[in-house]
């Protein structure tokens, strides 16, 4: 009996190791490759023979404009997140707390839009934005991004608001608060963790957006980081700069990885709350 239990434990550890390796190995390879010298970029050793930061220097060479791309990403993803949160908090509160007709239908419609293929709106909007001269502007990336970020935010926040007990506002309203005051003074502070989680999830979604940013821009100075990296060029046309691409990839991913490590409990709760309800 004890031997089978022991075997089971070992198998379990093996499984856990397998899962961790599956998730981390490709990411680890990106980090290792970014730290290699250009001369030994094709090495397959698991640890770089000599750690070098020349790829990172190459990424920030002025000709790549990568710093600018990071800033663009921050502006686009940040603005999208703030706007979506602002709109979604009110809507989600109404969905979770108020009784009104067609609530189900409206919520279903909002959530249905998140399953919408983005390209279906990119094609007509590309034409529209060409006509009104919005190509190569931030708003041309922010506005279409709302289409998939807003439903996500509404859904997540609705789940969070629903989990908070009704009695909180009822007590506040008995004490003389209006519903608006109860919302502002009681619900918002208490829902801060939920709002924060939603902010992280939609920031990551907006930060990772590629199709819209690719279609709406053709000038490097307004491109977001994912688009800029995909267009990195080497010394010659046939020399793909894998090292600096990996370094740039690490730089774009590290903020997200830090967020994930810091807020993993919240993110998991937020991701699963939407689906398992």
């Amino acid at each position: 009996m004890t031997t089978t239990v022991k075997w089971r434990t070992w198998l379990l550890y093996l499984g856990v190791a397998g899962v961790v390796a599956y998730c981390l190995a490709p990411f680890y390879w990106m980090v290792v490759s970014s730290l290699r010298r250009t001369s030994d970029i094709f090495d397959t050793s698991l640890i770089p023979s000599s750690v070098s930061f020349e790829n990172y220097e190459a990424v920030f060479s002025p000709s790549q404009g990568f710093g600018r791309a990071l800033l663009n990403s921050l502006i686009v993803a940040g603005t999208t997140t703030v706007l979506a949160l602002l709109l979604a908090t009110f809507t989600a509160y109404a969905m979770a707390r108020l009784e009104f007709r067609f609530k189900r239908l409206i919520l279903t419609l909002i959530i249905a839009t998140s399953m919408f293929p983005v390209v279906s709106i990119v094609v007509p909007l590309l034409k529209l934005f060409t006509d009104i001269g919005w190509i190569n502007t931030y708003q041309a990336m922010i506005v279409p991004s709302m289409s998939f970020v807003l439903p996500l935010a509404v859904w997540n926040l609705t789940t969070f608001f629903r989990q908070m007990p009704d009695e909180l506002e009822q007590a506040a309203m008995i004490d003389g608060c209006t519903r608006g005051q109860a919302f502002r003074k009681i619900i918002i502070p208490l829902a801060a963790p939920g709002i924060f989680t939603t902010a992280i999830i939609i920031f990551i979604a907006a930060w990772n957006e590629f199709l819209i940013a690719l279609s709406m821009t053709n000038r490097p100075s307004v491109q977001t980081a994912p688009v800029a990296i995909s267009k990195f060029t080497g010394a010659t046309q046939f020399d793909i700069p894998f090292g600096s691409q990996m370094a740039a990839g690490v730089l774009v991913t590290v903020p997200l990885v830090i967020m994930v490590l810091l807020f993993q409990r919240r993110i998991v709760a937020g991701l699963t709350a939407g689906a398992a309800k």
Partner: protein
Amino acid sequence: MATRTPPETAAKRPPRPAAGRAGRPPAPEKARRGRKPATAGTGRMAALLVSPTLLVLTVVVLYPTLMALQESLYGTKGLDPKTGFISDTEPFVGLKNYADIFGQAGDRFWNAFFNTTFFTVVTVGLETVIGVIMALIMHKAFSGRALVRASILIPWAVPTAISGLLWRWIFNSDGIANSLIGHQILWTTEGFHAKVAVIIAEVWKTAPFIGLLVLAGLQVIPKEVYEAARMDGASPVRQFCHITLPLVKPALLVAVLFRCLDALRMFDLPYILIGAQKNSVETLSMLAQNEASNVRFGPAAAYAVLLFVYVLLIALGFVRLLGADLVGDAGGPRRAKRRSLLRRTPALTAEVPA
């Protein structure tokens, strides 16, 4: 803001005035729940709170969709990418853009359609199997749970564009993949191996997501059920087939639905990993985007509309399969919701532990 309704919102108009009209005292069955003082006048407030979101979604989703429908009836003007004003001179061609997919020009469309479907079926299938295995392991593991959870979120957090670059590096002709298998395969050139590369990269990124959702479903299954099964002498395999699977099925189906709809619009990964206009991996999203960026808006819009219809059909199919609605019982207060969920899906009644 709510009153400034652009003309194209006609299709969404019914809900809004109705929500505004609901300002009168609530219906008797709602008053029965004892919330009458709290709900008086909430209709107007609800309209005020909900309409900004609806307005934005109308502008960024409904209006473009209608525009795409209209645009798909127009042909292509001469190839002049510099011209800003082209809508006036594009010839009206009726349903020709749709009819063309059955002609010889349709080869590219049907190829993209096949690729999209193939990628969706294969990746979602593999993801589900790997995701469920991951969830089972994570559910059983007690030590190192935080590490596993953190690492499982990494593929999800890596931007798809970056993962495309990363896998292009891994699948490089002198890359680690070839040195691991000891073969020289030119993964990123046209051919079936390009499909395999895309599938591997996609499954890596998204299987953990399914794992997370299934894990949430597993964590709410009461332990007593398994104890009872063990007492009755059920083997682990039987326990899995007759307890675990049926009870996580709702969570799993939702996860699969999300993944299917997401895979149907796949764009970033094949675009970066293999490249644009590659027959072996071109999806419908890539085809539509490529046509649009070449100022062939008419055909592009037609492909986008067809993709939209395809996604819609799959989504409707899933909703029928799921039976229950995805949004949960949005109507009633919490207790009513609890009860209806309890009746429908016993696995989802407990809170998901954070």
